């Protein structure tokens, strides 16, 4: 019961801050810009060319697929990995260190509560934020796309993952909604990395910047041909596994392997963060 009160209190703190909502606002504006751009005949011609080339000349059905669901998928693919990581690093990197910096952590630690419990409720609130952000981005992209062009089928095309597949409206919607859950699990790695640095004796901005630097470095290196043989060590390689939910058939074994790896990373980040936090002296 007390745990639920603490968890509620953490969520209250997190969602009452303006900074928390910045991510939602920024994504929505970006989605609108991308969707507007996709409405132009120039963009449509570009995608039609791509679609025809990759589907072996099925241009007649392009109109059934260049609709809300496909647009939402494109918006997700274009934005969430990079921009989402920025906001998740910001929230994860801020959640503990900001309270230490502001002095509210000392006020909390006057209470008969363990440091483990304090971190646990904070981390769980970060998990909720990650889920809410991903669902908001996916949901708003889908709703906005549907409002403009209806639902339609799903043309899932991710060249760097060698993914190209067509789904009916029903199957597409199921895959799209499932992908949000897997994407949350992938992006949680960024949140947890930020959370770990937030537990260190560092300013909130430093924790966020270090998290983003590591994420971007990992992403860049994983794309370099010189590092091809090390690709399986990069976290972003495993994080990209969420797109596998759009393959037919779904490679469950590969997905499970990737998420096991990410789970191990998350657990390591949490243990290191807790170890550092639990040994710190808190003093004015």
């Amino acid at each position, binding site marked *: 019961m007390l745990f639920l009160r603490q968890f509620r209190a953490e969520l209250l703190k997190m969602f009452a801050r303006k900074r928390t909502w910045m991510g939602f606002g920024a994504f929505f504006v970006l989605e609108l810009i991308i969707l507007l751009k996709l409405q132009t005949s120039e963009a449509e011609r570009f995608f039609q060319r791509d679609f025809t080339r990759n589907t072996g000349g099925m241009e007649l059905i392009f109109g059934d697929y260049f609709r809300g669901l496909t647009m939402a998928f494109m918006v997700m693919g274009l934005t969430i990995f990079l921009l989402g990581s920025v906001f998740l690093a910001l929230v994860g990197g801020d959640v503990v260190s900001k309270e230490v910096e502001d002095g509210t952590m000392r006020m909390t*630690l006057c209470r008969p509560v363990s440091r483990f419990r304090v971190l646990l409720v904070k981390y769980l609130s970060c998990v909720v934020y990650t889920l809410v952000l991903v669902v908001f981005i996916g949901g708003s992209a889908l709703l906005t796309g549907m409002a403009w062009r209806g639902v339609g089928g799903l043309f899932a095309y991710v060249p760097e993952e060698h993914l190209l597949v067509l789904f009916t409206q029903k199957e597409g919607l199921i895959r799209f909604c499932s992908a949000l859950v897997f994407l949350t699990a992938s992006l949680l790695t960024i949140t947890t990395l930020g959370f770990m640095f937030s537990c260190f004796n560092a300013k909130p901005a430093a924790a966020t910047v270090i998290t983003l630097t590591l994420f971007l470095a990992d992403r860049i290196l994983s794309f370099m041909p010189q590092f091809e043989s090390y690709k399986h060590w990069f976290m972003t390689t495993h994080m990209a596994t969420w797109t596998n939910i759009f393959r037919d058939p779904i490679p469950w074994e590969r997905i499970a392997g990737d998420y096991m790896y990410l789970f191990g990373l998350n657990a390591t980040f949490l243990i290191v963060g807790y170890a550092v936090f639990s040994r710190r002296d808190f003093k004015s």
Partner: protein
Amino acid sequence: MSAAIRLDNLRKSFAGKPALHGVSFEVQRGEIFGLLGHNGAGKSTALGILLGQVYPDEGEAFVGGISVQRERARALLKVGAIFEQPRFYDYLSGWRNLEIFTSYSAAVSRAEMDEAVEFVGLTARIRDDVGTYSQGMRQRLGLAQALLPAPEVIFLDEPTNGLDPEGIAEMRVLIQRLHRERGLTVLFCSHLLSEVEVLCERVAILNKGNLLYTGRWHDLMPKGTRYRIEMEPWSAELLGDVQLVRPGIVEVPPGSDVADLVARLVGAGVRVRVVEPERQTLEQLYLEKVLNV
């Protein structure tokens, strides 16, 4: 019955710089105990150790007979604390802040929260964002959160810092009421000696991490009576058994009369202009003890 608070040979260094050198003292149940020392004396470190926020290199702290280092959660179950500048979530109301902080202790009823808010006189503004509060209101909110849920021991770290004279007086009255009406044990850390003098019977004096004195501050008082004396010419030989404490201040030993001294001086042709008792303040005693002034 065990002491409400006990510090047992606490030692702590930060980055190799000693902050506490084997500090030990006890605070009895129901007393207001002053922990005195200038900035950097080690008061906050001692308080941090008592709250389990700072790990001692050696020694142990006990609250209600329970070791903070071994059973922190149980030891702090009946403890409330405020710091010199209590920090809150400025973007939330005072009420929400109380809900958040108390959620880390125990279930607190609305009636208990109302009572604490009323006690500190914040009822009218409790629904406003803390960002709009004055320093005095923040201190009062800090005190309200320390009172939830029903502590038996309360740590006050420089609670009057940053307050105007009116705020200081209000805070003093609140602390006295806490002691009188609720029988709380209060550990009052301050460098404001006048406040400690008014509120506390017993004190501990820290200087550079060393415990210089612990006991009743009245016991620090000189055994004799001190007088400020102005005479011309100044003659130390004529003082006799009267001790010159510092220029212009003499201490007449018990059993002697200042009138005898005056008669002796006048008889020797000394012009005595002023003889008045000097009231000993804790501040003077502290300066003598710490700085040998």
